[in-house]
Protein backbone atom coordinates (compact mmCIF):
# COMPACT_ATOMS: atom_id res chain seq x y z
CA UNK A 1 0.00 0.00 0.00
CA UNK A 2 1.44 3.35 -0.98
CA UNK A 3 0.90 6.50 1.03
CA UNK A 4 -1.66 7.59 -1.55
CA UNK A 5 -3.88 4.64 -0.75
CA UNK A 6 -4.18 5.34 2.97
CA UNK A 7 -7.86 5.48 3.86
CA UNK A 8 -9.23 8.60 5.51
CA UNK A 9 -12.75 9.62 6.44
CA UNK A 10 -14.29 10.96 3.25
CA UNK A 11 -18.02 10.94 3.79
CA UNK A 12 -20.32 11.35 6.78
CA UNK A 13 -23.82 9.87 6.81
CA UNK A 14 -26.41 12.50 7.81
CA UNK A 15 -29.41 10.24 7.22
CA UNK A 16 -29.03 6.55 6.37
CA UNK A 17 -32.34 5.87 4.61
CA UNK A 18 -33.81 2.37 4.26
CA UNK A 19 -30.87 0.47 2.76
CA UNK A 20 -27.40 1.46 1.63
CA UNK A 21 -24.74 -1.23 1.43
CA UNK A 22 -21.07 -1.44 0.52
CA UNK A 23 -20.61 -3.92 -2.34
CA UNK A 24 -17.58 -5.26 -4.15
CA UNK A 25 -18.03 -7.90 -6.87
CA UNK A 26 -19.08 -10.49 -4.27
CA UNK A 27 -17.84 -13.24 -1.98
CA UNK A 28 -16.55 -16.24 -3.90
CA UNK A 29 -15.01 -19.60 -3.05
CA UNK A 30 -16.97 -20.01 0.21
CA UNK A 31 -20.40 -21.07 -1.02
CA UNK A 32 -19.73 -24.67 0.04
CA UNK A 33 -19.77 -23.33 3.63
CA UNK A 34 -23.28 -22.00 3.17
CA UNK A 35 -22.03 -18.44 2.61
CA UNK A 36 -23.89 -16.57 -0.12
CA UNK A 37 -22.26 -14.54 -2.90
CA UNK A 38 -23.55 -11.06 -2.11
CA UNK A 39 -22.23 -8.30 -4.36
CA UNK A 40 -24.14 -5.73 -6.41
CA UNK A 41 -27.69 -6.68 -7.35
CA UNK A 42 -27.20 -4.64 -10.54
CA UNK A 43 -23.71 -5.69 -11.62
CA UNK A 44 -23.98 -3.64 -14.81
CA UNK A 45 -24.53 -0.25 -13.16
CA UNK A 46 -22.09 -1.09 -10.33
CA UNK A 47 -19.35 -1.80 -12.89
CA UNK A 48 -19.93 1.48 -14.72
CA UNK A 49 -19.74 3.48 -11.47
CA UNK A 50 -16.29 2.02 -10.83
CA UNK A 51 -15.19 2.53 -14.41
CA UNK A 52 -16.14 6.21 -14.47
CA UNK A 53 -14.13 6.86 -11.31
CA UNK A 54 -11.05 5.01 -12.55
CA UNK A 55 -11.50 2.16 -10.07
CA UNK A 56 -10.63 -1.38 -11.07
CA UNK A 57 -13.17 -4.17 -11.47
CA UNK A 58 -13.95 -5.46 -8.00
CA UNK A 59 -13.57 -2.13 -6.18
CA UNK A 60 -16.26 -1.52 -3.61
CA UNK A 61 -18.93 1.12 -4.06
CA UNK A 62 -22.27 1.94 -2.42
CA UNK A 63 -25.52 0.31 -3.45
CA UNK A 64 -28.36 2.66 -2.50
CA UNK A 65 -31.83 1.13 -2.55
CA UNK A 66 -34.87 3.38 -2.89
CA UNK A 67 -33.22 6.59 -1.64
CA UNK A 68 -33.75 8.51 1.59
CA UNK A 69 -29.97 8.83 1.97
CA UNK A 70 -28.18 12.05 2.88
CA UNK A 71 -24.37 12.27 2.87
CA UNK A 72 -21.89 15.08 3.40
CA UNK A 73 -18.40 15.18 1.87
CA UNK A 74 -15.65 15.60 4.49
CA UNK A 75 -13.18 16.59 1.76
CA UNK A 76 -13.34 17.26 -1.97
CA UNK A 77 -14.23 14.06 -3.80
CA UNK A 78 -14.74 12.95 -7.37
CA UNK A 79 -17.68 10.62 -7.73
CA UNK A 80 -19.93 8.90 -10.24
CA UNK A 81 -23.55 7.84 -9.71
CA UNK A 82 -25.05 5.17 -11.96
CA UNK A 83 -28.02 2.81 -11.91
CA UNK A 84 -31.41 4.06 -10.85
CA UNK A 85 -32.41 7.72 -10.95
CA UNK A 86 -33.18 8.31 -7.27
CA UNK A 87 -33.42 12.06 -7.70
CA UNK A 88 -29.85 12.68 -6.49
CA UNK A 89 -28.93 16.30 -5.75
CA UNK A 90 -25.87 18.10 -4.38
CA UNK A 91 -26.97 21.18 -2.46
CA UNK A 92 -30.37 20.90 -4.18
CA UNK A 93 -28.87 20.83 -7.69
CA UNK A 94 -29.48 17.65 -9.71
CA UNK A 95 -26.39 15.45 -10.08
CA UNK A 96 -25.73 14.30 -13.64
CA UNK A 97 -25.88 10.47 -13.68
CA UNK A 98 -23.52 8.08 -15.47
CA UNK A 99 -20.68 10.62 -15.43
CA UNK A 100 -17.90 11.84 -13.17
CA UNK A 101 -18.76 14.77 -10.92
CA UNK A 102 -17.01 16.92 -8.33
CA UNK A 103 -18.46 16.78 -4.80
CA UNK A 104 -17.08 19.65 -2.73
CA UNK A 105 -16.20 19.34 0.95
CA UNK A 106 -19.12 20.35 3.14
CA UNK A 107 -21.73 19.85 0.40
CA UNK A 108 -24.68 17.54 1.01
CA UNK A 109 -25.53 14.78 -1.47
CA UNK A 110 -29.14 13.60 -1.19
CA UNK A 111 -30.85 10.58 -2.76
CA UNK A 112 -34.59 11.30 -2.57
CA UNK A 113 -36.82 8.58 -4.05
CA UNK A 114 -37.04 6.47 -7.25
CA UNK A 115 -37.71 8.38 -10.47
CA UNK A 116 -36.83 5.29 -12.53
CA UNK A 117 -35.16 2.12 -11.31
CA UNK A 118 -34.63 1.05 -7.70
CA UNK A 119 -30.90 0.89 -6.93
CA UNK A 120 -28.24 3.56 -7.49
CA UNK A 121 -24.48 3.06 -7.25
CA UNK A 122 -22.14 5.69 -5.84
CA UNK A 123 -18.44 5.23 -6.54
CA UNK A 124 -15.64 7.56 -5.41
CA UNK A 125 -12.24 8.04 -7.02
CA UNK A 126 -9.75 6.04 -4.96
CA UNK A 127 -12.47 3.68 -3.76
CA UNK A 128 -14.10 3.02 -0.38
CA UNK A 129 -11.89 1.34 2.22
CA UNK A 130 -12.99 -1.58 4.42
CA UNK A 131 -11.46 -4.81 5.76
CA UNK A 132 -12.53 -7.86 3.75
CA UNK A 133 -14.33 -10.68 5.59
CA UNK A 134 -14.02 -14.12 4.00
CA UNK A 135 -12.24 -12.48 1.09
CA UNK A 136 -14.75 -9.72 0.36
CA UNK A 137 -16.27 -6.52 1.72
CA UNK A 138 -19.66 -7.35 0.13
CA UNK A 139 -22.25 -6.50 2.76
CA UNK A 140 -24.80 -9.23 3.50
CA UNK A 141 -26.98 -8.19 6.44
CA UNK A 142 -28.62 -11.61 6.89
CA UNK A 143 -25.23 -13.29 7.30
CA UNK A 144 -23.71 -10.45 9.33
CA UNK A 145 -20.74 -10.36 6.96
CA UNK A 146 -18.96 -7.51 5.16
CA UNK A 147 -19.59 -3.79 4.94
CA UNK A 148 -17.54 -1.04 6.59
CA UNK A 149 -17.55 -2.74 10.01
CA UNK A 150 -17.27 -6.31 8.73
CA UNK A 151 -20.47 -7.33 10.54
CA UNK A 152 -22.95 -6.91 7.70
CA UNK A 153 -24.34 -3.65 9.04
CA UNK A 154 -26.03 -1.38 6.52
CA UNK A 155 -25.14 2.31 6.57
CA UNK A 156 -26.31 4.04 9.74
CA UNK A 157 -26.81 7.71 10.48
CA UNK A 158 -23.60 9.15 11.91
CA UNK A 159 -21.27 6.67 10.14
CA UNK A 160 -18.01 7.97 8.74
CA UNK A 161 -17.03 6.22 5.54
CA UNK A 162 -13.36 5.71 4.75
CA UNK A 163 -12.23 6.64 1.26
CA UNK A 164 -8.77 5.96 -0.12
CA UNK A 165 -6.77 9.01 -1.23
CA UNK A 166 -6.98 8.73 -5.00
CA UNK A 167 -3.37 8.23 -5.91
CA UNK A 168 -3.55 6.56 -9.28
CA UNK A 169 -3.70 9.57 -11.58
CA UNK A 170 -2.77 7.33 -14.48
CA UNK A 171 -5.81 5.16 -13.86
CA UNK A 172 -8.12 8.14 -13.64
CA UNK A 173 -6.64 9.78 -16.74
CA UNK A 174 -7.49 6.67 -18.74
CA UNK A 175 -11.04 6.40 -17.44
CA UNK A 176 -13.95 7.92 -19.36
CA UNK A 177 -15.65 10.84 -17.63
CA UNK A 178 -19.03 10.00 -19.12
CA UNK A 179 -20.71 6.76 -20.18
CA UNK A 180 -21.55 6.62 -23.91
CA UNK A 181 -25.26 7.09 -24.60
CA UNK A 182 -25.64 3.60 -26.06
CA UNK A 183 -24.71 1.86 -22.78
CA UNK A 184 -27.30 3.71 -20.66
CA UNK A 185 -30.15 1.42 -19.57
CA UNK A 186 -33.70 2.77 -19.70
CA UNK A 187 -35.43 1.51 -16.57
CA UNK A 188 -38.70 3.18 -17.57
CA UNK A 189 -39.11 0.53 -20.31
CA UNK A 190 -40.61 -2.84 -19.26
CA UNK A 191 -37.91 -5.39 -18.46
CA UNK A 192 -37.44 -8.27 -20.90
CA UNK A 193 -35.29 -10.91 -19.21
CA UNK A 194 -33.14 -13.58 -20.88
CA UNK A 195 -33.68 -17.00 -19.36
CA UNK A 196 -31.35 -19.89 -20.10
CA UNK A 197 -33.58 -22.96 -19.87
CA UNK A 198 -32.32 -25.75 -17.69
CA UNK A 199 -32.82 -27.78 -14.54
CA UNK A 200 -36.38 -29.14 -14.28
CA UNK A 201 -37.90 -27.24 -17.22
CA UNK A 202 -38.99 -30.51 -18.86
CA UNK A 203 -41.15 -31.34 -15.84
CA UNK A 204 -43.43 -28.31 -16.25
CA UNK A 205 -46.71 -28.79 -18.10
CA UNK A 206 -46.97 -27.53 -21.68
CA UNK A 207 -49.54 -24.94 -20.66
CA UNK A 208 -47.23 -23.65 -17.91
CA UNK A 209 -44.30 -23.36 -20.31
CA UNK A 210 -46.47 -21.38 -22.71
CA UNK A 211 -47.61 -19.11 -19.87
CA UNK A 212 -44.09 -18.67 -18.50
CA UNK A 213 -42.86 -17.10 -21.73
CA UNK A 214 -46.04 -15.37 -22.93
CA UNK A 215 -47.05 -13.42 -19.85
CA UNK A 216 -46.31 -9.95 -18.62
CA UNK A 217 -45.44 -10.94 -15.07
CA UNK A 218 -45.83 -8.43 -12.29
CA UNK A 219 -43.10 -7.86 -9.69
CA UNK A 220 -44.52 -8.68 -6.25
CA UNK A 221 -44.02 -6.61 -3.08
CA UNK A 222 -41.92 -9.46 -1.75
CA UNK A 223 -38.71 -8.50 -3.51
CA UNK A 224 -35.31 -8.00 -1.92
CA UNK A 225 -31.66 -8.92 -2.42
CA UNK A 226 -32.44 -12.60 -1.80
CA UNK A 227 -35.04 -12.87 -4.52
CA UNK A 228 -37.88 -11.33 -6.45
CA UNK A 229 -41.30 -12.94 -6.51
CA UNK A 230 -43.45 -12.60 -9.64
CA UNK A 231 -47.24 -12.64 -9.90
CA UNK A 232 -49.16 -14.11 -12.77
CA UNK A 233 -50.64 -17.38 -13.98
CA UNK A 234 -50.02 -20.44 -11.83
CA UNK A 235 -47.19 -22.59 -13.18
CA UNK A 236 -47.51 -26.32 -12.61
CA UNK A 237 -44.61 -28.69 -12.32
CA UNK A 238 -44.87 -32.46 -12.04
CA UNK A 239 -42.26 -32.23 -9.29
CA UNK A 240 -43.30 -30.44 -6.10
CA UNK A 241 -40.09 -30.36 -4.16
CA UNK A 242 -36.59 -31.63 -4.76
CA UNK A 243 -33.79 -32.81 -2.58
CA UNK A 244 -32.02 -29.48 -1.88
CA UNK A 245 -29.27 -28.59 -4.32
CA UNK A 246 -26.95 -25.68 -5.11
CA UNK A 247 -28.69 -22.75 -6.77
CA UNK A 248 -27.04 -20.22 -9.04
CA UNK A 249 -27.64 -16.49 -9.49
CA UNK A 250 -30.81 -15.70 -11.42
CA UNK A 251 -32.36 -19.14 -10.90
CA UNK A 252 -36.10 -19.08 -11.60
CA UNK A 253 -37.65 -21.40 -9.05
CA UNK A 254 -41.32 -22.29 -8.77
CA UNK A 255 -42.63 -23.25 -5.31
CA UNK A 256 -45.88 -25.26 -4.99
CA UNK A 257 -48.03 -22.08 -5.18
CA UNK A 258 -46.95 -21.77 -8.83
CA UNK A 259 -45.63 -18.20 -8.57
CA UNK A 260 -41.98 -17.93 -9.67
CA UNK A 261 -39.22 -16.54 -7.47
CA UNK A 262 -36.06 -15.30 -9.17
CA UNK A 263 -33.06 -15.67 -6.88
CA UNK A 264 -30.57 -12.84 -6.58
CA UNK A 265 -27.24 -12.20 -4.86
CA UNK A 266 -28.17 -12.86 -1.21
CA UNK A 267 -30.10 -16.10 -1.91
CA UNK A 268 -29.52 -19.16 0.23
CA UNK A 269 -26.83 -21.38 -1.28
CA UNK A 270 -29.04 -24.46 -1.65
CA UNK A 271 -32.75 -24.89 -2.25
CA UNK A 272 -35.35 -27.48 -3.10
CA UNK A 273 -37.89 -26.06 -5.55
CA UNK A 274 -38.05 -27.00 -9.23
CA UNK A 275 -36.58 -24.44 -11.62
CA UNK A 276 -37.22 -23.31 -15.18
CA UNK A 277 -33.59 -22.27 -15.59
CA UNK A 278 -31.57 -19.18 -14.76
CA UNK A 279 -31.50 -15.58 -15.97
CA UNK A 280 -28.35 -14.28 -17.62
CA UNK A 281 -26.23 -12.18 -15.23
CA UNK A 282 -27.20 -8.99 -17.09
CA UNK A 283 -30.89 -9.86 -16.90
CA UNK A 284 -30.56 -10.47 -13.16
CA UNK A 285 -29.07 -6.96 -13.00
CA UNK A 286 -32.03 -5.55 -14.92
CA UNK A 287 -34.54 -7.31 -12.67
CA UNK A 288 -32.86 -5.78 -9.61
CA UNK A 289 -33.97 -2.35 -10.90
CA UNK A 290 -37.66 -3.29 -11.02
CA UNK A 291 -40.05 -1.80 -8.49
CA UNK A 292 -43.05 -3.73 -7.17
CA UNK A 293 -45.93 -3.92 -9.68
CA UNK A 294 -43.70 -3.27 -12.68
CA UNK A 295 -44.12 -5.69 -15.60
CA UNK A 296 -41.42 -8.16 -16.64
CA UNK A 297 -41.28 -10.73 -19.39
CA UNK A 298 -39.17 -13.87 -19.68
CA UNK A 299 -37.69 -14.98 -22.99
CA UNK A 300 -35.80 -18.21 -23.58
CA UNK A 301 -32.30 -17.67 -24.99
CA UNK A 302 -29.44 -19.93 -25.97
CA UNK A 303 -26.17 -19.64 -24.12
CA UNK A 304 -24.05 -18.68 -27.18
CA UNK A 305 -25.78 -15.35 -27.78
CA UNK A 306 -25.95 -14.55 -24.07
CA UNK A 307 -22.27 -15.39 -23.59
CA UNK A 308 -21.32 -13.04 -26.42
CA UNK A 309 -23.26 -10.17 -24.83
CA UNK A 310 -21.77 -10.89 -21.43
CA UNK A 311 -18.21 -10.92 -22.75
CA UNK A 312 -18.81 -7.66 -24.64
CA UNK A 313 -20.03 -6.06 -21.42
CA UNK A 314 -17.03 -7.28 -19.42
CA UNK A 315 -14.49 -6.31 -22.10
CA UNK A 316 -15.06 -2.62 -21.28
CA UNK A 317 -13.78 -2.88 -17.72
CA UNK A 318 -10.26 -3.17 -16.39
CA UNK A 319 -9.31 -5.72 -13.81
CA UNK A 320 -5.69 -4.60 -13.80
CA UNK A 321 -4.08 -1.14 -13.88
CA UNK A 322 -3.72 0.19 -17.43
Amino acid at each position, binding site marked *: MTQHDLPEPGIRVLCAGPLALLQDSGR*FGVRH*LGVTQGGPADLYSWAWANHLTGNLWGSANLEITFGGLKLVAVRDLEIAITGADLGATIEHKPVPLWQRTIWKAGDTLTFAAPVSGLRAYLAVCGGFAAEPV*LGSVACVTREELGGFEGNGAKLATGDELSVNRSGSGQQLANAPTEAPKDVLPDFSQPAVLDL*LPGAQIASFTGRSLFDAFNTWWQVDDRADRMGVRLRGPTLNCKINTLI*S*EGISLGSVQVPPDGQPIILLNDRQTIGGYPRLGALSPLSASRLAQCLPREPVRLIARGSDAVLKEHRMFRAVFHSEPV
Partner: protein
Amino acid sequence: MSWKPVLESAGLDAWIVRMFASIDERNVSWLSALARRCEEAFGDALVDLVPSYTTLLIVFDPLSVSPSQARAIICQTLVDLEPEETAHEGEVHELPTWYDARVGPELPRVAEGAGMAVSDVIEAHSERAYRVFALGFAPGFAFMGLVDPRLECARLNTPRKRVPAGSVALAGLQTAAYPTETPGGWNLLGRTSARLFDRERDGFSLLRVGDRVRFVPVSREVFEREGGNTAPLEPIT
Protein backbone atom coordinates in the same frame (compact mmCIF):
# COMPACT_ATOMS: atom_id res chain seq x y z
CA MET B 1 -22.74 -46.80 -9.11
CA SER B 2 -25.95 -47.84 -10.83
CA TRP B 3 -27.22 -44.29 -11.40
CA LYS B 4 -25.98 -42.45 -14.48
CA PRO B 5 -24.87 -38.84 -13.77
CA VAL B 6 -26.91 -36.14 -15.55
CA LEU B 7 -25.61 -32.69 -16.44
CA GLU B 8 -28.08 -29.81 -16.30
CA SER B 9 -27.53 -26.18 -17.23
CA ALA B 10 -27.67 -23.86 -14.22
CA GLY B 11 -27.14 -20.65 -16.18
CA LEU B 12 -24.36 -18.92 -18.09
CA ASP B 13 -21.70 -19.73 -15.49
CA ALA B 14 -22.80 -22.99 -13.87
CA TRP B 15 -23.61 -26.64 -14.43
CA ILE B 16 -25.20 -28.97 -11.97
CA VAL B 17 -24.20 -32.62 -11.95
CA ARG B 18 -26.99 -34.83 -10.70
CA MET B 19 -25.13 -37.90 -9.45
CA PHE B 20 -27.77 -39.81 -7.48
CA ALA B 21 -31.53 -40.22 -7.26
CA SER B 22 -31.79 -40.43 -3.48
CA ILE B 23 -30.07 -39.46 -0.24
CA ASP B 24 -27.42 -41.91 0.86
CA GLU B 25 -24.42 -41.59 3.14
CA ARG B 26 -22.23 -43.08 0.43
CA ASN B 27 -23.00 -40.27 -2.04
CA VAL B 28 -20.57 -37.90 -0.37
CA SER B 29 -17.41 -39.83 -1.29
CA TRP B 30 -18.39 -39.69 -4.97
CA LEU B 31 -19.30 -36.01 -4.81
CA SER B 32 -16.01 -35.19 -3.02
CA ALA B 33 -14.06 -37.06 -5.67
CA LEU B 34 -15.83 -35.14 -8.43
CA ALA B 35 -15.19 -31.85 -6.62
CA ARG B 36 -11.44 -32.57 -6.35
CA ARG B 37 -11.27 -33.41 -10.05
CA CYS B 38 -13.13 -30.22 -10.97
CA GLU B 39 -10.70 -28.15 -8.92
CA GLU B 40 -7.82 -29.60 -10.92
CA ALA B 41 -9.54 -29.49 -14.29
CA PHE B 42 -10.87 -25.92 -14.06
CA GLY B 43 -7.96 -24.35 -12.17
CA ASP B 44 -8.32 -20.56 -12.00
CA ALA B 45 -11.56 -20.67 -14.00
CA LEU B 46 -13.35 -22.30 -11.06
CA VAL B 47 -15.45 -19.89 -8.99
CA ASP B 48 -17.39 -22.10 -6.56
CA LEU B 49 -18.37 -25.70 -5.88
CA VAL B 50 -21.56 -26.42 -3.97
CA PRO B 51 -22.00 -30.07 -3.00
CA SER B 52 -25.38 -31.18 -1.70
CA TYR B 53 -27.13 -34.49 -0.98
CA THR B 54 -27.15 -35.84 -4.52
CA THR B 55 -25.63 -33.09 -6.65
CA LEU B 56 -22.62 -30.89 -7.25
CA LEU B 57 -23.09 -27.32 -8.53
CA ILE B 58 -20.03 -26.17 -10.47
CA VAL B 59 -19.66 -22.39 -10.96
CA PHE B 60 -17.02 -21.19 -13.42
CA ASP B 61 -15.82 -17.92 -14.91
CA PRO B 62 -17.61 -17.48 -18.24
CA LEU B 63 -14.93 -15.03 -19.40
CA SER B 64 -12.38 -17.82 -19.66
CA VAL B 65 -14.58 -20.90 -20.18
CA SER B 66 -17.77 -21.06 -22.26
CA PRO B 67 -20.69 -23.17 -21.02
CA SER B 68 -20.03 -25.77 -23.71
CA GLN B 69 -16.31 -25.92 -22.85
CA ALA B 70 -17.22 -26.29 -19.18
CA ARG B 71 -19.59 -29.12 -20.05
CA ALA B 72 -16.82 -30.93 -21.90
CA ILE B 73 -14.44 -30.48 -18.95
CA ILE B 74 -17.02 -31.87 -16.52
CA CYS B 75 -17.79 -34.86 -18.75
CA GLN B 76 -14.07 -35.62 -18.78
CA THR B 77 -13.87 -35.50 -14.97
CA LEU B 78 -16.69 -38.04 -14.76
CA VAL B 79 -14.76 -40.64 -16.77
CA ASP B 80 -13.59 -43.48 -14.51
CA LEU B 81 -14.50 -41.51 -11.38
CA GLU B 82 -13.72 -43.42 -8.19
CA PRO B 83 -15.14 -42.57 -4.76
CA GLU B 84 -12.73 -40.86 -2.40
CA GLU B 85 -12.24 -43.49 0.25
CA THR B 86 -10.20 -41.34 2.62
CA ALA B 87 -12.70 -38.51 2.54
CA HIS B 88 -15.41 -41.05 3.19
CA GLU B 89 -14.79 -41.07 6.92
CA GLY B 90 -14.21 -37.35 7.23
CA GLU B 91 -13.41 -35.68 10.52
CA VAL B 92 -15.42 -36.65 13.62
CA HIS B 93 -16.65 -33.72 15.68
CA GLU B 94 -18.14 -34.02 19.14
CA LEU B 95 -20.61 -31.26 20.00
CA PRO B 96 -21.27 -30.87 23.74
CA THR B 97 -25.04 -30.55 24.01
CA TRP B 98 -27.32 -29.61 26.88
CA TYR B 99 -30.58 -31.43 26.16
CA ASP B 100 -33.26 -29.64 28.14
CA ALA B 101 -36.81 -28.42 27.53
CA ARG B 102 -35.78 -24.89 28.57
CA VAL B 103 -33.52 -24.59 25.51
CA GLY B 104 -35.09 -27.45 23.53
CA PRO B 105 -38.83 -26.91 23.91
CA GLU B 106 -39.84 -29.64 21.44
CA LEU B 107 -38.10 -32.36 23.46
CA PRO B 108 -41.39 -33.45 25.12
CA ARG B 109 -43.29 -33.30 21.81
CA VAL B 110 -40.71 -35.49 20.03
CA ALA B 111 -40.80 -37.95 22.94
CA GLU B 112 -44.58 -38.07 22.79
CA GLY B 113 -44.59 -38.62 19.03
CA ALA B 114 -42.04 -41.42 19.37
CA GLY B 115 -43.80 -42.98 22.36
CA MET B 116 -40.52 -42.81 24.25
CA ALA B 117 -39.25 -41.27 27.47
CA VAL B 118 -37.35 -37.98 27.08
CA SER B 119 -34.19 -39.70 28.32
CA ASP B 120 -34.54 -42.31 25.58
CA VAL B 121 -34.96 -39.60 22.94
CA ILE B 122 -31.71 -38.01 24.16
CA GLU B 123 -29.97 -41.36 24.02
CA ALA B 124 -31.31 -42.15 20.54
CA HIS B 125 -30.29 -38.72 19.21
CA SER B 126 -26.82 -38.72 20.76
CA GLU B 127 -25.68 -42.26 20.10
CA ARG B 128 -25.36 -41.95 16.32
CA ALA B 129 -22.45 -40.37 14.45
CA TYR B 130 -24.19 -38.34 11.78
CA ARG B 131 -22.90 -37.56 8.33
CA VAL B 132 -22.92 -33.97 7.03
CA PHE B 133 -24.83 -34.04 3.73
CA ALA B 134 -24.87 -30.36 2.84
CA LEU B 135 -24.18 -26.86 4.14
CA GLY B 136 -26.67 -24.12 3.43
CA PHE B 137 -29.56 -22.04 4.76
CA ALA B 138 -27.01 -19.92 6.68
CA PRO B 139 -23.19 -19.84 6.93
CA GLY B 140 -22.00 -23.04 8.63
CA PHE B 141 -25.50 -24.59 8.89
CA ALA B 142 -24.92 -28.33 8.36
CA PHE B 143 -27.71 -30.69 7.34
CA MET B 144 -26.93 -34.04 8.99
CA GLY B 145 -28.47 -37.47 9.16
CA LEU B 146 -29.95 -39.80 9.28
CA VAL B 147 -31.57 -39.88 12.70
CA ASP B 148 -33.24 -42.86 14.34
CA PRO B 149 -36.53 -43.21 12.41
CA ARG B 150 -38.46 -43.33 15.70
CA LEU B 151 -37.57 -39.65 16.17
CA GLU B 152 -38.84 -38.56 12.76
CA CYS B 153 -40.99 -35.43 13.07
CA ALA B 154 -42.44 -32.74 10.83
CA ARG B 155 -41.30 -29.13 10.93
CA LEU B 156 -43.19 -26.67 13.11
CA ASN B 157 -46.35 -25.29 11.54
CA THR B 158 -45.24 -21.78 12.42
CA PRO B 159 -41.48 -21.19 12.27
CA ARG B 160 -39.87 -19.28 15.11
CA LYS B 161 -38.78 -15.76 14.27
CA ARG B 162 -35.63 -16.27 16.31
CA VAL B 163 -33.83 -19.52 16.98
CA PRO B 164 -30.81 -18.90 19.24
CA ALA B 165 -27.30 -19.79 18.06
CA GLY B 166 -26.28 -23.30 19.11
CA SER B 167 -29.82 -24.72 19.04
CA VAL B 168 -29.79 -28.44 18.26
CA ALA B 169 -32.70 -29.31 16.04
CA LEU B 170 -34.59 -32.04 14.27
CA ALA B 171 -36.74 -32.12 11.09
CA GLY B 172 -37.80 -35.22 9.21
CA LEU B 173 -34.89 -37.63 9.43
CA GLN B 174 -32.32 -34.84 9.63
CA THR B 175 -30.64 -33.00 12.44
CA ALA B 176 -28.68 -29.75 12.66
CA ALA B 177 -27.30 -27.08 14.96
CA TYR B 178 -27.95 -23.41 14.24
CA PRO B 179 -24.60 -21.53 13.91
CA THR B 180 -26.16 -18.08 14.39
CA GLU B 181 -29.50 -16.71 15.48
CA THR B 182 -31.90 -16.98 12.54
CA PRO B 183 -35.58 -17.69 11.93
CA GLY B 184 -36.25 -21.43 11.79
CA GLY B 185 -38.93 -24.09 11.78
CA TRP B 186 -37.10 -27.13 13.12
CA ASN B 187 -37.90 -28.92 16.41
CA LEU B 188 -35.47 -27.88 19.12
CA LEU B 189 -34.02 -30.53 21.47
CA GLY B 190 -31.28 -28.62 23.24
CA ARG B 191 -28.27 -26.41 22.69
CA THR B 192 -24.59 -26.92 21.98
CA SER B 193 -21.76 -24.75 23.28
CA ALA B 194 -19.69 -25.44 20.13
CA ARG B 195 -18.94 -22.44 17.92
CA LEU B 196 -20.10 -23.61 14.52
CA PHE B 197 -19.19 -20.60 12.41
CA ASP B 198 -16.32 -18.32 13.33
CA ARG B 199 -14.91 -15.84 10.85
CA GLU B 200 -11.66 -15.69 12.86
CA ARG B 201 -11.11 -19.43 12.51
CA ASP B 202 -9.14 -20.91 9.68
CA GLY B 203 -11.75 -22.41 7.37
CA PHE B 204 -14.58 -20.45 9.09
CA SER B 205 -17.03 -23.35 9.40
CA LEU B 206 -16.51 -26.08 12.00
CA LEU B 207 -18.36 -28.61 9.86
CA ARG B 208 -17.83 -29.59 6.21
CA VAL B 209 -19.74 -31.84 3.85
CA GLY B 210 -18.68 -35.42 4.57
CA ASP B 211 -17.72 -34.81 8.21
CA ARG B 212 -19.04 -37.01 11.02
CA VAL B 213 -20.77 -35.42 14.01
CA ARG B 214 -21.82 -36.72 17.42
CA PHE B 215 -23.88 -34.77 19.92
CA VAL B 216 -22.54 -35.48 23.40
CA PRO B 217 -25.00 -34.92 26.27
CA VAL B 218 -23.57 -32.64 28.98
CA SER B 219 -24.97 -31.13 32.16
CA ARG B 220 -26.05 -27.52 32.40
CA GLU B 221 -22.88 -26.82 34.45
CA VAL B 222 -20.55 -28.17 31.77
CA PHE B 223 -22.54 -26.41 29.04
CA GLU B 224 -22.22 -23.09 30.85
CA ARG B 225 -18.54 -23.60 31.60
CA GLU B 226 -17.94 -24.22 27.89
CA GLY B 227 -19.51 -20.86 27.14
CA GLY B 228 -23.01 -22.08 26.30
CA ASN B 229 -25.91 -19.63 26.36
CA THR B 230 -28.55 -20.77 28.88
CA ALA B 231 -31.10 -18.06 28.10
CA PRO B 232 -34.49 -19.76 27.74
CA LEU B 233 -36.44 -19.51 24.52
CA GLU B 234 -39.16 -17.06 23.72
CA PRO B 235 -42.53 -18.71 23.07
CA ILE B 236 -43.55 -18.98 19.41
CA THR B 237 -45.51 -15.90 18.36
